[in-house]
């Protein structure tokens, strides 16, 4: 009966292809939505990802995400260093600041101050020169688009830079590069390099600089330390050290993986984009259901006469249900394969750009589950049509 079900399914090529397209479309949309979700979540914890050598992140107890932070006292650094099992601990300062470009335009940046000695947290720059060499030039910074486009534009011509006759807001511009200057709190900074680190979510330009320069740029504050990045001694138990830090300092200490997870959870609870993503998945499933469900139902309706024939020849209701679900599962598997395959190809194309796309293990799984939910529901509705099968419909009159 399985073979007969499959043969009936593929006999009507047009409907079969339509059915596969409907299912592939559902799988594509759900997988794409999940990959988009994974993509922007990855950007959400970009700070953690771009510091892979950090074992433990220490922060204020109230902090649950790398993106929504409150600062600690500088004393926290020494407290952390004093915990047994900590190999080294370096500070990371973060603050949103507005920079003014030479033509008068301004742009909000997230400024990240790193330890002067180790420069831990500085991304790789597009230069043949070493970042440590460059960042120790007074006032120097590394700029990064942070996933934005056209936000790092400076005047193309010297005549439009710091003009005496007021801002030249309509002046021709070009991308920031080595040697360009900006003003933060009326203090001059010099671009020592441009990096291309993991884009942020939400996208915003970044400035990396040394702690001493960071302190020069920010107004005096009692608490400026955002994170302490910890490297533990080799052979130590990561979670044990994190617990020790928490206990001894009263601060929150999370392993990198735990911090990523907490950040994702924070986004799930706080980000409106998650709602948009859920809407996208629901919409994908509804559209998929519309197409797949209708196609499958039509397919069964068109074949009712043959189911009636099988019933007349002694096929039980169970056998007919098995046939319907054989068709459903076969279509679901092939359609999902096509949909997920196309999604992978499209993903490769869009991920090369700035689109937050990352296909993780759960993306195709969700795609398959989405398709199965849609297909099984459609199968149940189609099966309902079988209840109306009267074998007498086979007779002439």
């Amino acid at each position, binding site marked *: *009966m399985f073979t*007969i079900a499959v043969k009936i399914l593929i*006999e009507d090529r047009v409907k079969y292809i339509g059915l596969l397209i409907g299912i592939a479309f559902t799988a594509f949309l759900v997988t794409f939505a999940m990959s988009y979700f994974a993509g922007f979540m990855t950007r959400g914890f970009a700070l953690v990802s771009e510091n892979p050598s950090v074992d433990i992140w220490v922060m204020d107890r109230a902090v649950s995400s790398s993106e929504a932070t409150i600062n600690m006292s500088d004393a926290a650094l020494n407290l952390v260093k004093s915990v047994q099992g900590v190999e080294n601990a370096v500070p990371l300062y973060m603050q949103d600041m507005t920079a003014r470009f030479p033509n008068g335009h301004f742009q909000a940046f997230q400024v990240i101050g790193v330890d002067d000695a180790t420069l831990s947290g500085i991304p790789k720059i597009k230069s043949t020169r070493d970042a440590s060499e460059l960042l120790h030039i007074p006032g120097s910074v590394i700029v990064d688009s942070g996933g934005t486009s056209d936000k790092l534009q400076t005047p193309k011509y010297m005549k439009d830079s710091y003009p005496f006759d007021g801002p030249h807001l309509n002046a021709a511009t070009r991308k920031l590069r080595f040697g360009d200057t900006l003003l933060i709190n009326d203090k001059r900074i010099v671009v020592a390099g441009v990096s291309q680190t993991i884009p942020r979510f939400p996208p915003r330009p970044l400035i990396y600089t040394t702690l001493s320069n960071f302190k020069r740029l920010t107004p005096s504050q009692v608490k400026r330390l955002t994170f302490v990045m910890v490297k533990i001694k080799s052979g130590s138990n990561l979670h044990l050290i994190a617990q020790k830090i928490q206990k001894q300092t009263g601060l929150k200490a999370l392993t990198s993986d735990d911090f990523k997870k907490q950040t994702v959870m924070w986004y799930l609870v706080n980000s409106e984009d998650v709602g948009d993503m859920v809407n996208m998945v629901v919409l994908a499933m509804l559209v998929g259901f519309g197409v797949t469900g209708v196609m499958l139902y039509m397919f069964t309706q068109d074949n009712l006469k043959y189911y009636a024939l099988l019933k*007349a020849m002694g096929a039980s*209701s169970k056998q007919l249900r098995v046939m319907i679900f054989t068709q459903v599962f076969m279509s679901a598997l092939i359609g999902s394969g096509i949909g997920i395959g196309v999604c992978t190809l499209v993903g490769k194309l869009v991920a090369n750009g700035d689109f937050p796309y990352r296909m993780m293990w759960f993306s195709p799984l969700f795609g398959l589950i989405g398709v199965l939910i849609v297909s099984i529901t459609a199968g149940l509705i189609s099966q309902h049509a079988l209840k109306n099968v*009267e074998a007498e419909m086979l007779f*002439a009159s």
Partner: protein
Amino acid sequence: MSKTVLHCKDIVKTYGEAEAAVLALQGVTLDVYRGEMMMLVGPSGCGKTTFVSCISGLLDFDSGVCDILGKDITSMDTEEVVAFRGRHIGFVFQSFNLLPALTCVENVALPLTIANADKAQSYTKAKVLLDAVGLGEKYDSKPKHLSGGEQQRVAVARALVHEPDLIICDEPTSSLDHQTGQAVMQLLQKMKNETHITIIVVTHDNRIYKYGDRMAHMEDGKIRKVEQLG
């Protein structure tokens, strides 16, 4: 007297309810015996299709007795009726009703496939019957590649493959030209003579009456008379 294959008494069937009710069968009584071909004739709307639907367990009726091979089909539940039908009744329809996705062999073997019989044996049996109906060259052809007469011969082979006790033919020649129709009836007659199977033929076609052993005339939901033929 030959063994009774079908015994019907006072079968009543009503469609619809209350004022919209239509009395399709008004107490049909008929006995059909083993090895005979019974022609069931009558004007359109007289209840022939309703009657054969009732006796094959495809349609419930309101009252009356219907025993097939000595078994009262009203005492069986739905799945039992389906299984009984699968074992003991074969059908030949006016519009052939072959599955277009299947080859001739697969179509003929369908009743055995449904009964979960061994595939190889089913196909062997199907091929023997296809040979018997003169379609030995068309084992792997699909219905769309066959003429109407050939399709009906496949349908006859399918009706016989599981060796049923009763075959119900609904207008088996209506979709065929005269010559092909005669050939199909000759085939049914030959099969009946060889296997002593019982055949009920619902028909309007008076050119095939001659193949029957007896003929039941239906009118207004009743059997008006049963006459001996030939």
